[in-house]
Each structure stands twice: as structure tokens, then as C-alpha cells.
């Protein structure tokens, strides 16, 4: 296969994905593709299974039916050894950073290098400092995770995620709970990391403005399926009623303000009848 054809093939393909948690159906026939070398954002309301989707792509969960291909390999069918080999080419940034609390910043970034390579200590040191410099935290290398702010922890986690030079990074809610300055830093880092390293980036978030700003490709999901997908312009132009409500943040619409139930009038009348008894 020549390089152009590889570049044209999607990095991730999800086909007819069905996933249940107990009796709750999280995904009901979800299909989507993630183009290679681009920033793809999966958006949807809280509780729609965005993080679950990342875990399915990373092979931490298995679908009930349907298939997920990453880099041409069907994730659920891989042996543990091949799954781990695939994960070495895949970084993941967790919402909380998920830094190892018994190590300082330097050791956290060095962790994947120490685990998977036999590089000499001097080279590991240089690589770690390069990764930390890229996220602006070289001088914070001796701090412990407890001394970091939420934004700093995420930047260290990003440095750790790119330590093994992966082909793809999965970002789980990278903007949640950040102040505007830190949010700007993370947005810039995601975009810069994507363009300088030529990575495929998959973000899951519900922060519309930031996501639309840096994405090449957007997928909107709700109720276990894809509501809209395409480039930012395509999604904005041809948005369904549901997508318009979501993107504009309108409080009422296809997703009602009131939790579904009996009519308000009937409820009040019932109270009156029981009062008469």
C-alpha cells in the first residue's frame, strides 16, 4: 500500500456499534469514521457515552455487537499482546490527567519510556525534557502531581501521552473545568501537537465553541447514535433541529426542558381530586 492510500484511509472506523451497560443501551447502531491526521471531535450531551466510546476505541471495553477498526485492526479481536502493541501507537489524555501519584512530573513522563524502551538514562532525560518543554512545563519537572493545578496536570498528561510518539491521541473532555487562560493553552497545544506531529486527534467534549474552533471533523452523538457528522462547515450548514439546539445551547427544543412525564394540568388536577376525598 503506498503512502497516499494509507493517508486516505480513515484511522478509526466504527460500524454498527451496539453497547449496553446493564439494561441501558449506550450505543444502538453507531457508525462513524475518524480521518487520519485530522482533529475529530465527538460532541454530545453529558451521559451520552462519549468517554465510553473512547474506551471502546482503546479496547478497554468490548462492544456487544458491531466492529471498531483502528489503523486497520479490529480492536475487539486482538490478542492482549497485539492490543498492547496497538496502544503503544495510541496516546490517551484522561479528563483528570490520571498522573501516577507516587511519581513526580519527570517520572510520570518518563514512565512509558522506561516501561517500553531500553534507552539510556541520559537519552530518557533529554526526551522527557523535550516533551515537557513542548507543553511549557520543563521547569515543573520536580513537582509532584498533588502540587499541580488541573490545567498543569492535563499538560503533563499530554507530555506523557506523546512520549512514545504515537500516531493518534484520544482526548477525554480536555476542556472540562478549566479557566479561560488554561483553556486557551490546552486548545493551542492540541492544535499544535496535531499539526507538528501529524497525529490523528480524537476529542470528546461538550464545549462547543472551543471544539468547533480547532476541529477539522465533527461528529454529534445523542441517544446512542450519530445525529450529524462532517466538517465544521457541513455540520453548521446542514444541522438537524437537534444539532442546532445543541450547538446554540438552547434550553428547549427536541431535547425538552421538562423531564418527560404526565401533563402538568393532569398532575395538578389529581392533587385537587385527592384533596376533595
Amino acid at each position: 500500500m503506498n503512502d497516499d492510500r494509507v493517508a486516505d484511509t480513515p484511522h478509526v472506523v466504527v460500524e454498527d456499534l451496539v453497547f449496553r451497560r446493564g439494561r441501558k443501551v449506550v450505543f444502538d447502531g453507531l457508525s462513524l469514521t475518524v480521518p487520519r491526521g485530522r482533529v475529530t471531535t465527538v460532541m454530545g450531551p453529558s451521559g451520552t457515552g462519549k468517554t465510553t466510546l473512547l474506551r471502546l476505541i482503546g479496547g478497554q471495553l468490548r462492544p456487544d455487537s458491531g466492529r471498531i477498526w483502528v489503523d486497520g485492526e479490529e480492536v475487539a479481536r486482538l490478542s492482549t499482546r497485539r492490543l498492547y502493541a496497538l496502544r503503544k501507537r495510541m496516546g490517551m489524555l484522561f479528563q483528570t490527567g490520571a498522573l501516577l501519584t507516587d511519581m513526580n512530573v519527570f517520572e510520570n513522563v518518563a514512565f512509558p519510556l522506561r516501561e517500553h524502551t531500553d534507552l539510556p538514562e541520559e537519552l530518557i532525560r533529554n526526551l522527557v525534557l523535550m516533551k515537557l518543554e513542548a507543553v511549557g512545563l520543563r521547569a515543573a519537572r520536580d513537582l509532584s502531581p498533588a502540587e499541580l493545578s488541573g490545567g498543569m496536570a492535563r499538560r503533563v498528561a499530554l507530555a506523557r501521552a506523546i512520549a512514545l510518539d504515537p500516531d493518534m491521541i484520544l482526548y477525554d473532555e480536555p476542556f472540562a473545568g478549566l479557566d479561560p487562560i488554561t483553556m486557551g493553552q490546552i486548545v493551542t497545544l492540541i492544535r499544535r501537537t496535531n499539526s507538528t506531529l501529524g497525529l490523528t486527534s480524537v476529542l470528546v467534549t461538550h464545549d462547543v465553541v472551543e471544539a468547533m474552533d480547532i476541529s477539522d471533523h465533527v461528529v454529534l452523538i445523542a441517544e446512542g447514535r450519530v445525529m450529524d457528522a462532517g466538517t465544521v462547515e457541513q455540520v453548521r450548514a446542514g444541522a438537524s433541529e437537534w444539532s442546532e439546539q445543541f450547538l446554540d445551547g438552547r434550553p428547549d427544543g427536541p431535547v425538552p426542558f421538562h423531564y418527560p412525564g404526565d401533563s402538568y394540568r393532569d398532575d395538578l388536577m389529581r392533587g385537587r381530586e385527592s384533596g376533595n376525598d
Partner: protein
Amino acid sequence: MIDFLAHLGRSGLHWLSLLGRASIFLFRVLRSQDAVVRRYRLTLIEIYSVGVRSLLIIVVSGLFVGMVLGYQGYITLVNFGAAEALGGVVALSLVRELGPVVTALLFAGRAGSALTAEIGLMKTTEQLSAMEMMAVDPYRRVFAPRFFAGFLSMPLLAAIFSAVGVMGGFIVGVGLLGVDSGSYFSQMQAVTDWREDVVSGVIKSIVFGFVVTWIAIFQGLDAEPTSEGISRATTQTVVASALAVLGLDFILTGLMFT
């Protein structure tokens, strides 16, 4: 009646599923034990954390238990004019029973609860998931070294507990109550059998170490990822370990000394 049966069924399924998860966990930990040798540095760190840091409580408790045994043994034996047999009574009580059992109970409270809380917190803060996503197997990196450290530390701690206990009995019996020092140790040597008593005690402590560490690490991994979940898991570790140790002690004593 139907409700009662349904409740009984649900409860049975819950326990069966718990036992199944715990067994699969144990199988995977045992299968990863080669990591204990390959990553001996991690194992040494865990032996320090689980074993060495439990030393203080073990030594202090062993001393007091031995001193109490010295008092109680003397009070009973002196009525029969057999106070000189104190050394044997103290040593047998410690080596056969109190050493392994009390050490296991203290170990569950000190090291077991710490293991559960540590692993529960690693799960809650997604550190275990992060390791998996970095292609690092938590069974080899986290669980196997801790399991081996607990398994190895228990018999050593029990031996230290018994040794310190014998000295506690000596301080009270010989130092305060006037039992002859030579009789204390000669009686101890005369009645304590290497295979019957010492080896049996060591086997007990190995079994207790295995079970307490298994319960502690599994409870941490199985904890609900909330602060309340970790608190519940830590309590369950101590309660389940104590019950398992006492129950197993009865079974092992029955098998060994009948």
C-alpha cells in the same frame, strides 16, 4: 415468601459473581508472578511498604501479648506448682496460635487496609486505566509485586511477633515474677517441636498472608470508584480478612493437630 426467595437468589448470585471475579483476579495475579523476579526493584519497594512499615505495630503488640501471656500463664501454673513450665506455655501459645493469628489480624488492619485504599484510589483517579492505555499491564506492574510482598512478609512478621512475644513473657515471668531463667528457656526448648509446632505455625501464617493480601488487593480493584466506595472496600478488607483468618485458623488447627 416469593420476595424472600427472590432476595435469597439475588444475594446468592451476588456472592457467586463476587467469588468468580475474585478467582479470576487471583488467577491473573498468579499468572503474572514472573514479574516479581523480573521487576525485583518494585517488589523490594512493596516489601518495604507492606512488611517493614508494619514492623512497629507487630513488635509492640508481640511484646504486650507475650507479657500478658507471662502473667496469665504464671497465675495459672503457680497453683499447680508448675511455674517453671511458663516458657513452654508462652512459646507454644505464640508459635502455634497467637503469632500467626494476631499478626494476620494486625496485618489486615495495617497493611491490608492500606493496600485496598491505595489500589481503590488508583482506580478512582483512573491511574490503572491510564496504565492500560499506555500498554502497561497493571497486573504485572501493580498487583503482582504487592501480592508477593504481602505473601512473603506475613510469615516473617509472624516469626518476629512470636520471638518478641517470648521475650515479653521472659521479662514478666523471669524479670518480675521470679521464674528461673534457665527453666524458662529449657522448658520452651523441651516442649516446642520443630515440625509439629513451628512449621505448622509458619504454614498457617503463609496461608493467612496469601488470603489477606488477596482480599485486600481484590477489594481495592473491585471498589466502587467513589470516596464512599473506597471507604466501604477498606472496611470490608478488614472484616473479611478477620473472618477468613479466624475461620481458616480453625480448619488448619483441626487438620494439623488432630
